[in-house]
């Protein structure tokens, strides 16, 4: 043993540099923590996998619903305006009655526009549609009644839409009401429902994922209490002591986010075929809902954030109760 204390600091010890050196020291510190947390996670692989899976499941549920909802929006997207309703009247209605009816329809706040389609125009449309002009020309009289093409206001909820159709059907002169896409309205309503549901679930399961990371991090903290006590006694700031655990939280979150994307990918693979078939039966061509790179990034970032916040919470609670 050498007898010299002052030598300890005077002996050509490198100076502690300026801001630059501090930044490098800071970067090194974080790189070290990142490596350590990674090592910790891989050393306790089973426990980590468990946490990842739990977090992954918690994240994949709202995520799946979100994707279903975007899928529904893709279906309903092409109909930017709400689907029309056609009102077929009885044959031989008097002109003044038609005008009155037209006025009545236009006054209704639920109806955006009402266009009168006279039988001749309808017949022309019809012959254009089926391409049998000769057949139509052979008709001695026009079999078609007067009709109104209605466009309901876009914001009309599905339930009001159904009520409107019922009301229209009950008008004396109306023989038939044909709604082009009542089902579409239902899909729209369903899409809204799924959207809100996924928001609620995202909140609930997000909190769940938060609690899972918090408790996982809490376990790590417990296993290191002695170390933390020593660190505190040599002057470590609470922030310094929290740092490694924040990294653990981020690791747990990222792992969970990764598992969630895997689960979702498998889910999409399994559900895609039947979903397309089902939609095909409605004559709808739909691109598969996008599970693209930006979304995956977003999931991972959100998961890491949840992990960091959960860890932060666990640290604040546990470290505060430590008697230092």
């Amino acid at each position, binding site marked *: *043993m*050498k*007898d*010299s*204390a*002052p*030598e*300890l*600091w*005077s*002996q*050509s*010890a*490198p*100076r*502690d*540099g300026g801001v630059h*050196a*501090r930044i*490098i*020291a*800071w970067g*090194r*510190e974080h790189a070290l923590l990142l490596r350590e947390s990674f090592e910790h996670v891989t050393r306790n692989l089973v426990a980590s996998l468990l946490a990842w899976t739990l977090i992954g499941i918690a994240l994949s549920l709202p995520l799946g619903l979100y994707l279903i909802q975007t899928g529904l929006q893709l279906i309903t997207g092409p109909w930017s305006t709400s689907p029309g309703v056609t009102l077929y009247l009885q044959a031989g209605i008097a002109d003044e009655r038609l005008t009155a009816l037209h006025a009545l329809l236009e006054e209704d706040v639920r109806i955006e526009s009402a266009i009168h389609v006279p039988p001749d125009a309808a017949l022309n449309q019809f012959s254009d549609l089926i391409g049998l002009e000769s057949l139509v020309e052979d008709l001695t009289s026009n079999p078609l009644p007067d009709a109104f093409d209605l466009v309901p206001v876009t914001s009309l909820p599905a339930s009001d839409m159904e009520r409107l159709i019922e009301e229209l059907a009950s008008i004396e002169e109306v023989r038939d009401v044909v709604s082009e896409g009542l089902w579409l309205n239902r899909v729209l309503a369903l899409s809204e429902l799924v959207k809100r549901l996924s928001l609620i679930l995202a909140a609930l399961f997000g909190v769940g994922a938060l609690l899972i990371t918090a408790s996982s991090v809490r376990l790590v903290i417990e296993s290191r209490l*002695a*170390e933390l*006590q*020593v*660190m*505190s*006694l*040599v*002057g*470590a*700031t*609470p922030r*310094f002591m929290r740092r490694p655990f924040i990294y653990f939280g981020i690791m747990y979150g990222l792992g969970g986010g990764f598992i969630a994307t895997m689960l979702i990918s498998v889910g999409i693979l399994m559900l895609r075929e039947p979903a397309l078939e089902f939609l095909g039966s409605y004559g709808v061509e739909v691109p598969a809902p996008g599970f693209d790179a930006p979304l995956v990034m977003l999931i991972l970032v959100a998961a890491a954030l949840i992990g960091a916040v959960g860890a932060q919470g666990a640290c604040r609670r546990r470290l505060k109760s430590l*008697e*230092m």
Partner: protein
Amino acid sequence: MYSTLATLWTRCLQATNEMFGLGVQLTEVTKMFAGRSRGALQGVSHSFEPGTITFVTGHSGAGKTTLLRLIMNQFPPTYGQVIVGDVNLATLNARQLPRFRQQLGVVFQEHHLLSARTVLDNVMLPLRVSGRSRALMESRALNALAIMGLDDKGDVFPEQLSTGEQQRVGIARALVNRPRLLLADEPTGNLDPEMSKSVMRLFREFREIGTTVIVASHDLALIEAFGAPFIELREGELVGHTRS
């Protein structure tokens, strides 16, 4: 040897301001632990002057460790006040406490080494918490280890060391950040007499650069051999002190 030390000493004194060492003032300090009718410390008043070395002695359970823990603000006194430097420890908030502790060097009775980290990492810890550069940390820590005769032990883990070696690592860690106040709790408890004397000489050199040194020890022979001032505790009460 002594002439070089003397020049180093004057250099260091010039480099540091005159108030480098932190004085400690205990006023009527009583520390009660839960479930005990008698305080671990009972109305202890004493002033440790800046830049001096003082031993705290007494039988096992006399309150030596408790005294040091109060000074590092591990817990507050039940009654009385502790002033370190010009800071009344009762006024330290959570943000100020780490800064306060970064000025101390502490040798713990139970070593308190981090078992998952290498000896070098352990010694660097006080520098790491204050965000020093890697080069500075390593050079200082290696120096401190060399001074403690542990040049070749930097890469091993504490469990692979003898108890005495662990104690020396603990001492190296306490020295590494050039403390203004050095608290050493039985620093020679596991060391042979020769090593003990070396450690004591080392502590005296600290005093020479202005550090205030407080050493808890029940090794009366060692204290007397050094002729350093000491205070004696008995069942938590201050029963005597010498001045030199």
